[in-house]
């Protein structure tokens, strides 16, 4: 059951309200649809800065932005922000600047609406177009599927307590939630194409950004309220929540990327203690060890037998958490003392301790405190005049001092992430340069200047979403380590925090809507993109596109979009229990492997068709090999030469592209002129580019006013008197 689950149906109504608003906005935006294929595929290249920022940002942020980031930081701490968020801020904007604007210009100049059209014409190869189409579709579909599957996995446990009986008793089933989500998205992309997707993405992005901020505010206040000082102002609450984690020895490592200084100190102390105990143990004779072991076992039995008689009601040789809680304080201390001593005594005794108290791992802090309290009490009672108390206390102190087992060497604390791994995360955000759905959004830009705001604001938008989520994950780990929060899986951390700490059905509903918004903001772009690709990259090239009117092309795209949504929904039902999540995460690696191709196509005139084919082949082969070696994605820690597989794969793809291009015939200049601005201008005029350094008399117009940059006041080049008809 989801920790987020709430008995009230208010969250469900909030989600339904969000879906109705989204559908309404999508349908309203379709009123601006002009009915042309150009409008359906690229919104007539009319999208301004703000909409472009919101739609591209929303498309690049999936459900991972809220749920996954919190889950990752629950496990790895603050390293997640540096590894993923701040790299993405730098690299995504770089890709928009280097790749997006250029592709927009080429797309506008040549009327392209898909990536494949660009590559097909750049390399003069229909075959390359079809190969790339196939590869891109194979990479996008798993990415799309995890969106639909995530909806089902999130909604069902969350809604389970809202229904007492009937077919919804276990919550809204995945087939229904998936159907609703796909239906809502299909409705507005069917009507308005990419324009509706852009409008919807803008709304969804605002929703999930608000969700992150509001959840952050409320959760920090709830954690601060648990501290001795209580809740205060916003900054004070954040400080107290972080200090709470700092106070937890098992969670404080998440506050640094390397090894926490206090963990280092504890390790050094434990190492010294280990050395002393080892020395004492090694210096014992065999007889002394056997004697110590016998005494230790006798004392433990003396401690445990009365407890079993008094508190093990069902006589199964173990104590439940309830039985433990019901014991008087003195007996709890005795049992805790015995359990801690058993746990320190090697693997065999640890197994006995776990059998005696199955909740041992969850209650380590409580048991450690009780163990320390028992020892403290024993030290006091050893000086008591009550003989019975004194003997009992001496027994406790004797057990603590005995050394019958070889001491366990303490484990050296490890960093949450290595330096090389931290660096290799750079390659993951490169993938945005080859996402076909992001490419389509780029083509919708009204002008190149529309890219300015997305380039500048993208890193800030990432910070607004990721900072709260990463901190919430770290705080959740602190609470879980203290036994104050139950988090069944890392990805349940955000839901657990909201459900257990805030307990506000409106915030729960907002969180549900925010998660759905993050997922759907990618889904709509992917659906419309695949419909566009099938229409323009497969159907129209195989048929004769001139046989179809513009209106018919729109309907063909709509039909393909319906088919894509239906197939994706069907696959989500068929693969509901499979490990498609593992595959989808590897898809980012595949897209990144193709990035050298797009960079070379845009900036290196020497790139040849053979080089392009070679790069694609190496990417596909290496991706398959690495994916297989990782157990088809099951090994989430899989590395190649101690770094993420994406790094060697991308470097190999780039190397092969360069080598094969240099060994094969360069492309025709006529082809290059279409894709490189300088070449086109040079072809149009044989005159030297710069004329401003010539004396004015040579321009044939000595009476003209000073002409800076060889342009008149209206920014036009003056007509040369001897230029003829050029």
């Amino acid at each position: 059951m989801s920790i987020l689950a709430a008995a009230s149906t208010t969250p469900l109504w909030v989600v339904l309200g969000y879906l109705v608003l989204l559908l309404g906005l999508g349908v309203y935006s379709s009123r601006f649809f002009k009915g042309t294929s150009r409008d359906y595929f690229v919104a007539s290249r009319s999208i301004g800065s703000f909409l472009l920022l919101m739609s591209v940002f929303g498309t690049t942020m999936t459900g991972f932005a809220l749920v996954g980031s919190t889950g990752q930081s629950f496990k790895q701490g603050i390293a997640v922000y540096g590894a993923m968020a701040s790299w993405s801020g730098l690299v995504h904007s770089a890709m928009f600047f280097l790749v997006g604007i250029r592709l927009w210009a080429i797309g506008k100049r040549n009327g392209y609406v898909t990536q494949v059209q660009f590559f097909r014409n750049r390399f003069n190869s229909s075959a390359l177009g079809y190969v790339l189409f196939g590869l891109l579709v194979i990479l996008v579909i798993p990415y799309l599927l995890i969106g639909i599957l995530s909806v089902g996995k999130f909604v069902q446990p969350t809604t389970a307590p809202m229904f007492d009986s009937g077919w919804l008793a276990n919550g809204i089933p995945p087939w229904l939630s998936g159907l609703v989500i796909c239906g809502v998205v299909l409705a507005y992309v069917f009507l308005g194409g990419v324009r509706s997707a852009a409008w919807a993405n803008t709304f969804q992005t605002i929703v999930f950004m608000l969700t992150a901020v509001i959840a952050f505010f409320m959760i920090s206040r709830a954690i601060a309220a648990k501290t001795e000082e209580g809740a205060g102002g916003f900054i004070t609450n954040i400080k107290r929540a972080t200090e709470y984690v700092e106070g937890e020895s098992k969670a404080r490592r998440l506050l640094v990327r390397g090894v926490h200084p206090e963990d280092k100190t504890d390790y050094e102390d434990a190492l010294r203690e280990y050395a002393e105990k080892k020395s004492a143990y090694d210096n014992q004779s065999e007889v002394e060890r056997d004697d110590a072991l016998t005494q230790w076992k006798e004392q433990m039995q003396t401690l445990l037998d009365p407890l079993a008689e008094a508190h093990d009601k069902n006589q199964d040789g173990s104590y439940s958490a309830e039985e433990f809680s019901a014991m008087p304080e003195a007996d709890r201390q005795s049992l805790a003392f015995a359990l801690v001593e058993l746990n320190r005594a090697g693997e065999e005794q640890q197994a006995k301790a776990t059998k005696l108290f199955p909740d041992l791992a969850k209650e380590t802090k409580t048991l450690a405190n009780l163990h320390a309290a028992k020892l403290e009490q024993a030290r006091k009672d050893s000086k008591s005049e009550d003989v019975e108390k004194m003997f009992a206390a001496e027994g406790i102190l004797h057990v603590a001092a005995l050394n019958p087992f070889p001491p366990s060497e303490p484990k050296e604390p490890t960093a949450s992430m290595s330096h090389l791994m931290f660096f290799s995360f750079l390659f993951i955000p490169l993938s945005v340069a080859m996402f076909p759905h992001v490419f389509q959004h780029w083509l919708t830009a009204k002008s190149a200047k529309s890219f300015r705001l997305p380039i500048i604001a993208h890193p800030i938008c990432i910070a607004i979403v990721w900072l709260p989520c990463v901190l919430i994950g770290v705080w959740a780990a602190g609470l879980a380590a203290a036994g104050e929060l139950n988090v069944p899986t890392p990805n349940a951390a955000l839901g657990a925090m909201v459900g257990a700490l805030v307990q506000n059905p409106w915030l729960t509903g907002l969180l549900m809507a925010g998660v759905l918004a993050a997922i759907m903001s990618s889904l709509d772009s992917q659906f419309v993109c695949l419909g566009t690709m099938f229409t323009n990259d497969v159907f129209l090239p195989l048929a004769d596109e001139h046989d179809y009117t513009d209106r018919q092309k729109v309907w063909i795209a709509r039909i393909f979009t319906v088919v894509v949504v239906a197939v994706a929904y069907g696959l989500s039902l068929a693969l509901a229990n499979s490990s498609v999540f593992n595959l989808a995460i590897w898809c980012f690696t595949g897209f990144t492997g193709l990035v050298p191709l797009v960079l070379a196509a845009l900036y290196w005139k020497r790139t040849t068709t053979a080089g392009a084919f070679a790069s694609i082949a190496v990417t596909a082969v290496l991706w398959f090999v690495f994916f297989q070696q990782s157990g088809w994605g099951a090994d989430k820690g899989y590395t190649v030469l101690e770094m993420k597989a994406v790094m060697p794969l991308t470097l190999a793809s780039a190397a092969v592209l360069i080598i094969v291009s240099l060994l094969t015939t360069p492309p025709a200049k006529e082809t290059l002129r279409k894709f490189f601005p300088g070449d086109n201008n040079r072809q149009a005029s044989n005159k030297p580019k710069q004329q401003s350094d010539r004396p004015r008399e040579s321009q044939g117009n000595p009476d003209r006013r000073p002409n800076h940059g060889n342009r008149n006041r209206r920014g036009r080049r003056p007509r040369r008197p001897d230029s003829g008809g050029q």
Partner: protein
Amino acid sequence: MKYWVVAIMVSLGWLHHDWWFWEESFSFLGIPAGLGYHVAFSFATAVAWALAVYQAWPAELERWADSGNRRRSRSRNRPRRPSR
């Protein structure tokens, strides 16, 4: 593109790997040092891109895009064969 833009971006890439805060455990306003540095890095990235956008904007691309010479009779789905 202006080389100083490239230099700033490469510098940011180098600064991203903050060895100096790798094991620092202090926090500022409740945000751990390693996390706060990267949040500040995100804002610094935005400033760097603002500089790049306004000082190294590829204006020639926009002019080139607007001066498009599309030949509508030729399909964009069938690549043009280079003339011999």
